[in-house]
């Protein structure tokens, strides 16, 4: 049964004020279009969980959607800092809960596995444990060192962008996998956005590539270029220029408001946004072709 809906309907149905959301993707496949739609719909008091809040959550904090962030690295990767997040924490206007990357994805792994917690070996760095009481310790019943544990994270909604999916939500993902899969299995609801909606036969031609199965997906949205300024491996490049410009775009109230007005409130949807970016950007983000070698699954039809 097809779950295809428009992105705005999907956000309307599954993202509510006060929810904990996980917009997945480590550098890759970050669902910017979905977050722009959440901002357009004026959601409030959200708890924003992501290993790297990245520009996507800095923008949401600036737009006033967030009550709290849960994260493990709050920089603009390879560039600098995230001003709105940093100031929110410094001024005490934003709640936060902090982990290491491994702690954060272990929380998702526990959530995705139906477990109350995941164990990790000790790191000797106890300051984070001291300031975040969600880190706890468990005795090794086999006599070794205590292990550190973090509790399951089960977001209300995970938003996961993928290269291709069928209309029911079976999705192929390749390139950097980050915590896409764990976030989807951990969440109560999953909004899937896809560069391409393909026939089920394409998915079935390579079942080992299906990282997200339809059974956990609530809504499937066809959103080409959803990830810009992040990227989709094999579809378009990361817009590094935009990441470098973020310092300027986000530097004060006036700049960020101008950006929101023009690029979020000023467009109806991602198609309009992409058109607005213009031909030069399109060409700059173009990627060439480099195909995987096929594999044979074998046919077992009756001879």
């Amino acid at each position, binding site marked *: 049964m097809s779950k295809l809906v428009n992105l705005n309907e999907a956000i309307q149905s599954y993202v509510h004020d006060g929810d904990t959301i996980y917009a997945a993707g*480590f*550098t*890759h496949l970050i669902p910017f279009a979905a977050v722009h739609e959440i901002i357009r719909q004026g959601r409030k008091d959200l708890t924003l969980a992501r*290993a*790297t809040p990245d520009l996507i959550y800095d923008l949401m904090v600036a737009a006033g959607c967030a009550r709290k962030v849960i*994260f*493990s*690295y*709050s*920089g603009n*990767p*390879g*560039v600098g*800092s995230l001003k709105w997040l*940093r100031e929110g*924490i*410094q001024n*005490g206007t934003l709640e936060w809960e*902090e*982990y*290491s*990357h*491994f*702690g954060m*994805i*272990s929380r*998702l*792994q526990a959530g995705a596995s139906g477990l109350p917690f995941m164990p*990790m*070996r*000790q*790191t*000797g*760095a*106890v*300051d*984070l444990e001291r*300031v975040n009481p969600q880190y706890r310790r468990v005795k090794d019943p086999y006599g070794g*060192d205590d292990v550190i544990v973090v509790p399951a994270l089960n977001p209300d909604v995970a938003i996961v962008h993928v290269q291709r999916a069928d209309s029911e939500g079976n999705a192929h993902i*390749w*390139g*950097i*996998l*980050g*915590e*896409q*899969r*764990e976030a989807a299995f951990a969440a109560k609801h999953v909004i899937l956005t896809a560069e391409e909606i393909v026939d089920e036969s394409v998915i079935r031609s390579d079942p080992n590539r299906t990282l997200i199965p339809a059974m956990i997906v609530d809504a499937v949205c066809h959103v080409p270029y959803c990830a810009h300024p992040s*990227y989709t*491996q094999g579809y378009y*490049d*990361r817009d*590094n220029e935009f*990441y*470098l410009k973020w310092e300027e775009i986000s530097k004060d109230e006036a700049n960020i408001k101008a950006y929101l007005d023009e690029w979020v409130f000023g467009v109806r949807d991602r198609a309009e946004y992409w058109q607005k970016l213009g031909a030069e950007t399109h060409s700059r983000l173009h*990627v060439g072709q*480099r195909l995987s070698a096929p594999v044979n699954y074998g046919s077992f039809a009756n001879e």
Partner: protein
Amino acid sequence: MNEAAYNATELMIINAARLLQDGDQVFVGVGIPNLACNLARRTHAPHLQMIYEAGVIGAQPERLPLSIGDPTLVSGALAVCSMFDIFSFYLQRGNIDVGFLGGAQIDQFGNINATVIGDYFHPKVRLPGSGGSMEIAAWANRCYIITPHQKRRFPARVDFHTSIGFLKGGDSRAKTGVRGAGPQAVVTNLCILKPNEQGELILAALHPGCTFEEVQANTGWQLKQAPHVEVTPAPTPEELRILREELDPQRIYI
């Protein structure tokens, strides 16, 4: 330092590259560590392998990546796996030889603060936080720190232990049960610091033209010196050529 011949960044990259061994499995960030690994691969360590916390093993990037999640790291890599797997099966399992670390503060025992200046709950300056470094510092077999040498970056004690070096020195690191050997060297634009047997960072080598006094003036504790402080060989023309012409021709980092 001969400013005409090479700059501080080039000096740090080249000295970091020399610390890497052929066959090392290196957990690497973008920027300076990435350039150091690529330089080592093109000189004495052709079988060094770069591993990114985003889950990429054996990258062969066609261009210089801006972030550790750049798509050019993926195309043509040997393997790509989830972040959970890279931290579990590779790092925690003990399959990583070398980790690179950095941070706003590095202290006398190689502990690093990348989290906060001031009080955690009422921060003076909020920094990005651990990312992968809490576990890399603990579980990689060896760690290296590359950083400009400035007094504010080298306090006697860090405000927050984002990742540990030798904690309070002595056997305090070993007693935590972490598997890695800890930071083996800090490469700066002035010198190389290495831990002594007590885990205290001491002056091991000066770059050409640099002096102990200059280093001490930029270090927040009474710096000890190794019995024989070496002088690092100056960057060779070949090292500089590879760096400038092959690895960063657009001079993004150098």
